[in-house]
């Protein structure tokens, strides 16, 4: 649960920055291809996106794990839910990191 609280608090601040970027740049302009590429190439911003990805994946899938564990009990089911959520967490982090790294290094 401490992980759940910690990731939540850390993510709040960083997601706020991510959203503010869209608003300060102008919403439509911030979504243009060149603008997005520039964001990814700016290492601190790309780093922030990576951290958000990790924090929210952990927070989100841990929350899902909690809900699923409350719905049904049993050793096999609980193990399957826990490992499944961790696997989904890792898969999402890997997939998102792939995007960030490839764009940042110009591999589009």
């Amino acid at each position, binding site marked *: *649960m*401490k992980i759940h609280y910690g990731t939540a608090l850390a993510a709040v601040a960083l997601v706020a920055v991510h959203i503010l970027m869209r608003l300060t740049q102008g919403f439509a302009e911030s979504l243009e291809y060149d603008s997005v590429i520039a964001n990814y190439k700016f290492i601190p911003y790309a780093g922030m996106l990576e951290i958000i990805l990790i924090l929210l994946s952990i927070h989100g899938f841990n929350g899902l794990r*909690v809900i699923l*564990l*409350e719905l049904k*009990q049993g050793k096999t089911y609980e193990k399957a839910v826990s490992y499944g959520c961790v696997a989904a967490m890792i898969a999402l982090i890997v997939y998102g990191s792939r995007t960030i790294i490839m764009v940042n290094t110009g591999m589009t």
Partner: protein
Amino acid sequence: MAQTSSLAEENSSTPLSSQQSIILRIARYNPEHDSAKKFMEFNIPYEKWTTVLEAILEVKKHLDHSVAVRYSCRQATCGSCGMIINGKPRLACFTKISELNSNIITVEPMNNFPIIRDLAVKFERLFDTHHKVKPYIIRDDTEITTSTKEFLQSPEELEKYIQFSNCIKCGLCNSACPTMATDSSFVGPQALAQAYRYVADSRDKGKDDRLKIIDDSHGIWRCHFAGSCSQVCPKGVDPAMGIQLLRGYMLGFRS
């Protein structure tokens, strides 16, 4: 199957003054031969002070002797008559018909407790979870060995836990809890509140033992502060407060 029945004629020295009556719907279910719950309806006159328990006992006395209901003290002390009344867990002896503001009163057995018959439910799970948190003073010495022949406690120390000692083990909190609705392994608000009662007691030295017991994936961490337990508690125990204060120890907010 529903039947609407009225009171049989009876010679009584106290004539009923009230013309008001309600329909009392009682859930009937015998797990030995019924596949599902069914409701039976009874027309019951009431006064402004009539409790739901009194209405149920009127049914037993005049209309259907076979209604199974558990009750004892009739004064919200024993915790026996917990049931779902118009959708909410309440004590039948502590709930007046007039305060429900409805012409139809539906009574059902408490949720999250296996049904014995009709309105009577099994309490084994509540007893087991309560027992699990070691609901007694834990310390190495005894009162006999101290010079004072008792463990002294100031009024301020008493105030810290006396609220939680009011628990009458009625089970209404366990019935209202959204986690108990789906989680068979959850300890439950009653047990967690009692764990806090002993942790907060200055005479107790078993805090670490109890925190270890509840520091479990189906222990205190399955409480999400929905607060329904406190909403239904008839004795002001406020289990939600006890659980969050207890969690404060585990999160480092309290030492």
